[in-house]
């Protein structure tokens, strides 16, 4: 047991717990019994709060441990996280503004709310909501993986249920204050989390390379490792370049389709807040790029991953915690661990709120209680947030964590299939509602089939071994258009292309048949409303 680290970790954890409870009163509106308040923090976060909130939301604990771990084991491919977050903001800049405005004008809380309003189809909205919930659940579970990597490095590495107990306690605390304070809790905690993360990463990327003899030493150590292992490399090879680019693009397109990202955006006060953040959020990208390089630093420092006592497997996700432990004094390692640990809580809270909002607005209210009052909605969402969090804990406790990692991989592919209905619909209703539904089924189905067909790189598992598909394996009813090619591509993009093709095809047919395309609740002007407009819909009122 590492006592100094543990004490600092627990202290900082205590601070954020207090903040989590105090948050209920922070910038409080008239009532917390409304989803605008509980689920979106009153829709009034300014630029700074939004920056911390979205930063805390999308740069998660899992990202912090998994990206360097991927660099550690695969090399250059793991650096995809950088172009991913660079192309992200220019791509989403304009669509997000339209999403914010139309949601503000109509009081939409979730992406599925928007689809419901745009197409008047409760079936399409249900598909979007279910996709969102299914994709988010394993993401929450993965935050626990990040948290556990830190706990195990600090010596809390028991076997069985006892080994998971600290995790359970941390999550019960999180669940209680999220229940009470809603989105304000992670928004306030994000300040602590991000400041800690910035301090730790900046110190790490300045101090560690100096200590280890400079970047050229580090890169040559990494090069040696990959040359000896005959897998990976410090540069991309002919086979994984397309995978690198499509994974970066696919991840960028997918990120703001995730319900928790949309929650962070809708909680902001106005269009200018979002615009400013599109220039300010890349600060985190820079951080992520530098952090990724710590995977190579870990190679140069001779870090060996810790064996997880619960599974008996060496866990590469522990390399960053181990690196910090070996190279930093124990008090600073404690701060670093707290940064990662709190970094798990913020997104876990936002994700559970987003999933709860989806459940409440698009399933409970749509199918079980059409006449639910705002107060009942808020109550339902609070309860749902508890269910979601304990579902995630159960995932980790009773099922191999590898299952969550597989599911998260699948999650990225399936959330991408909502792009036509959510993102394209922001601009045009040309795609027919039946086209969107058909496209969703095809993209979803084919994506799953392709993922199922991919073995893991080390050959240990035959299915769901990754998201890199060799073009050779791409088959269309037995026809292999790229037979013999070893070039790899990201499955999500392949499935999305199929989705779009089918959507267009079915749209053409549906238009020919003059099928009814649903009623549109939105008007062109709705996509441009801004904070301060006269006659704008009131917040927290129906």
């Amino acid at each position, binding site marked *: 047991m590492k006592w100094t680290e543990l004490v600092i970790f627990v202290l900082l954890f205590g601070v954020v717990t207090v903040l989590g409870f105090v948050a209920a009163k922070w910038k409080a509106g008239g009532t917390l019994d409304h989803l605008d308040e509980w689920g979106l923090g009153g829709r009034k976060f300014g630029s700074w709060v939004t920056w911390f909130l979205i930063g805390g939301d999308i740069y998660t604990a899992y990202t912090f441990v998994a990206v360097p771990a991927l660099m550690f084991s695969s090399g250059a491919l793991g650096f995809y996280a950088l172009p991913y977050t660079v192309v992200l903001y*220019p791509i989403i800049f304009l669509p997000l503004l339209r999403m914010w*405005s139309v949601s503000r004008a*109509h009081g939409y809380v979730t992406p599925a709310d928007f689809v419901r309003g745009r197409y008047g189809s409760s079936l399409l909205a249900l598909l979007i909501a279910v996709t969102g919930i299914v994709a988010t659940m394993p993401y929450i579970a993965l935050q626990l993986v990040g948290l556990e990597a830190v706990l195990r490095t600090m010596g809390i590495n028991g076997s069985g249920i006892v080994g998971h107990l600290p995790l359970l306690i941390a999550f019960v605390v999180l669940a209680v204050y999220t229940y009470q304070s809603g989105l304000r809790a992670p928004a306030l905690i994000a300040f602590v989390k991000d400041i800690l993360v910035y301090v730790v990463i900046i110190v790490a990327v300045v101090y560690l390379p100096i200590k280890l003899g400079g970047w050229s030493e580090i890169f040559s150590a990494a090069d040696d490792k990959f040359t000896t292992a005959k897998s990976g490399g410090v540069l991309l090879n002919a086979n994984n370049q397309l995978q690198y680019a499509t994974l970066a693009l696919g991840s960028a397109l997918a990120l703001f389709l995730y319900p928790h990202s949309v929650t962070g955006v809708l909680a902001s006060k106005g269009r200018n807040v979002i615009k400013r953040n599109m*220039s300010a959020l890349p600060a985190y990208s820079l951080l992520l*790029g530098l952090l990724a390089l710590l995977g190579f630093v870990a190679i140069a420092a001779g870090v060996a991953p810790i064996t997880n006592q619960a599974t008996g497997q060496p866990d590469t996700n522990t390399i960053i915690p181990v690196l910090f432990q070996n190279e930093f004094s124990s008090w600073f390692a404690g701060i670093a661990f707290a940064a990662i640990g709190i970094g798990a809580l913020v997104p876990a809270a936002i994700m559970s709120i987003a999933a709860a909002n989806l459940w409440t607005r698009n399933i409970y209210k749509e199918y079980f209680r059409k006449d639910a009052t705002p107060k009942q909605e808020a109550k339902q969402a609070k309860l749902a947030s508890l269910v979601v969090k304990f579902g995630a804990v159960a995932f980790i406790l009773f099922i191999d964590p590898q299952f969550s990692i597989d599911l998260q991989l699948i999650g990225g592919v399936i959330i991408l299939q909502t792009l036509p209905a959510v993102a394209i619909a922001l601009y045009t209703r040309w795609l027919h509602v039946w086209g969107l539904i058909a496209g969703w089924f095809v993209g979803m189905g084919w994506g799953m089939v392709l993922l199922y067909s991919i073995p893991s790189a080390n050959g240990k598992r035959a299915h769901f071994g990754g998201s890199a598909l060799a073009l050779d394996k791409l088959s269309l009813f037995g026809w292999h258009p790229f037979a013999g090619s070893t070039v790899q591509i990201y499955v999500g993009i392949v499935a999305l292309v199929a989705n779009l093709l089918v959507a267009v095809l079915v749209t053409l047919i549906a238009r020919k048949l003059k099928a009814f395309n649903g009623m549109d609740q939105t008007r062109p002007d709705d996509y441009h409303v801004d904070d301060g407009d006269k006659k704008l819909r009131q917040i927290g009122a129906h």
Partner: protein
Amino acid sequence: MAPPKKSASGIRWSPWNLLLLVPLLLLITPFFNRSGPEFIGMPFFYWFQLLGVVVGVAATSTVFAMTKDKPTTPPGPGRDVDELDEGATR
């Protein structure tokens, strides 16, 4: 309730928006998938992409600055109370 075909329009375009395409060059890996020239010991592949962050920020900042002054809602009485109340019922 507006008839569906009316709502397809309403897109406001500024040529500055094209700047947002520039950072996408970072997806064309053959441009930078090489080790030289190095910078402080980092292969080209890595520092070039880190530099990409700055390019991305420049693109979004410029678009923000150049489109800021345009009103997002057209001037004049385009919207009446009934239109606005329509969405508030949900």
